[in-house]
């Protein structure tokens, strides 16, 4: 069960994958559908988030909000 809840502002995501690269639980991956700018925004793919906040710290566009149970 996920300890953390990620809220992602998909419209502002540029799909740079820095969050994907640094997530210790491999919770994030790029989605299959584009946003209006044509990028593939990041999505949550499993429920192993531990709310460490690493993805949010490394996100250059500050689009990830992390909450902990």
């Amino acid at each position, binding site marked *: 069960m996920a300890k953390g809840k990620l809220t992602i502002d998909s419209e502002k995501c540029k799909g*740079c994958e820095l969050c994907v690269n*640094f997530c210790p639980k491999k919770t994030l991956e790029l989605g299959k559908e584009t946003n209006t700018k044509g990028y593939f925004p990041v999505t949550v793919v499993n429920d192993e988030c531990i709310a460490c906040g690493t993805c949010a710290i490394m996100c250059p566009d500050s689009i990830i909000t992390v909450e*902990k149970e």
Partner: protein
Amino acid sequence: MAVVYKKSIALTDAPLTYCPGCTHGIIHKLVAENLVELGVYDKAIGVGPVGCSALCDFFFACDMYIAGHGRAPAVATGIKRTHPDKFVFTYQGDGDLASIGTAEIVHAAHRGEKISTIFVNNAIYGMTGGQMAPTTLVGQKATTAPYGRSEEHCGKPIRIAEMIATIEGAKFVERVSVNNPANVRKAKKAIRRAFELQLEGKGFGLVEVLSTCPTNWGYSAVNALKWLEENLIPYYPLGNYKDY
């Protein structure tokens, strides 16, 4: 639910105009978070450069001014001297600070102006299309050095943090990087220390942040961080060079 991480209130909702994976965004966050945590967000005036971050006035929610190319420390000097109660910082890239603005930064440090400078070093001119900067590594390719920078022709890259640290008026000089979460946290602490020094009225502080330029380096965002770690950090050693 407790919030672990949320976008800083010192950043606006405007989408950043930087390329995907450009670490300018991370450095913006660190500056913004420190402004809020130190309680100076309301009285902060930032001075932006010319370069990719010339649009940073759209992204920082505090008062901002965009100076002529390289002249941010001169403009910040004027702002700080007329408004000593304000918190003044400059945000400059390497084409701005290390090239055309070398005189301004050296003399702002020399006069011991009570301002803080964030110097973003990505070893290339980003906005204008990847030309060679004074900080470009020997052998690194740029549009104006298609065979790589030649030491014989252009000399070796300039190390700004070490140079500024030799100046008496500079009270805090540190070089940090944002290539992994641990270094991002260290970078935040360094920026905080430079800001605190200004608030204590002690003098000039400079934080050099090694950054990436995935587009002009020609790497993906993740590989650009690896390239930074393997090439930039050995030439530009991280660490504190001066702390008053």
